């Protein structure tokens, strides 16, 4: 039997990798992919807890997270398309109109 804490450590590692990608990458598409990575880490944690605590609510929550992730990806990529139309760049450090 694999202990529950192994799953939690795995989930934390993947989440931290997602945080690193989110804060450090230059390409806005990679930033959105890092968000997906973080959401997947949360899902691993939720499903592992659901299995070990013998409670289905974790899986329901993971189900909702997947639905919200799909909505978030659609909106995020629509924003990227709108950005390309106005700036023709994918690099977040080129977008600095609001720095004043």
């Amino acid at each position, binding site marked *: 039997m694999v202990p529950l804490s192994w799953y939690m450590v795995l989930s934390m590692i993947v989440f931290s990798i997602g*945080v690193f990608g989110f804060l450090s990458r230059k390409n806005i598409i990679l930033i959105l992919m890092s968000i997906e990575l973080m959401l997947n880490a949360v899902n691993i944690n939720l499903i592992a807890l659901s299995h070990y605590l013998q409670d289905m*609510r974790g899986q329901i929550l993971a189900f909702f997270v997947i639905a919200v992730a799909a909505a978030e990806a659609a909106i995020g990529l629509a924003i990227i398309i709108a950005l390309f139309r106005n700036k023709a760049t994918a690099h977040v450090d080129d977008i600095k109109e609001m720095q004043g």
Partner: protein
Amino acid sequence: MIQQLYFGYFAFAITVLSLLVITRKNPIHSVAWMLLLFFHIAGLYLFLNAEFLAVVQIIVYAGGILVLFLFAVLLVNIKEELTAGKYIGAGATGFTFALALLVVVLMSLRSFVAAPPGIYTIDLIQQETNTVVLGKILYTEFLYPFEVVSLILLVAIVGAIVLAKRRLKG
């Protein structure tokens, strides 16, 4: 022992693949590694007796979200992408922050206390099958959140169309 090996393979593969996703220079390579990553995560879900979510993971993430990403990646100028740097100027700060977060949360893991186990034992789920149990709870106890999620998806579809369509003249 075989279970630990199975988990070990998947944990190693998921960690390496997520590192590959965020460190590739070419965004198309990132999407390709992410496809493999999602299949491994689905395998881990199967290991946790969540068959329905494993299938949903493959259908929604690998079949839906990654295709969306691929469309967006094809808008990027790949040649420019390969010559420009991967990280922003404050990239080291991001790495430090992520590492600090990992250390702090790992230290807090020791004080984790599990809740008392619920009623959905493995025997019950095996008797009724995972999808039946999940559907029963989803449509009774979680009916209202389920409807809210459908509203979120509707708003997201309308919002995506409004954001992505060309501005009408006049």
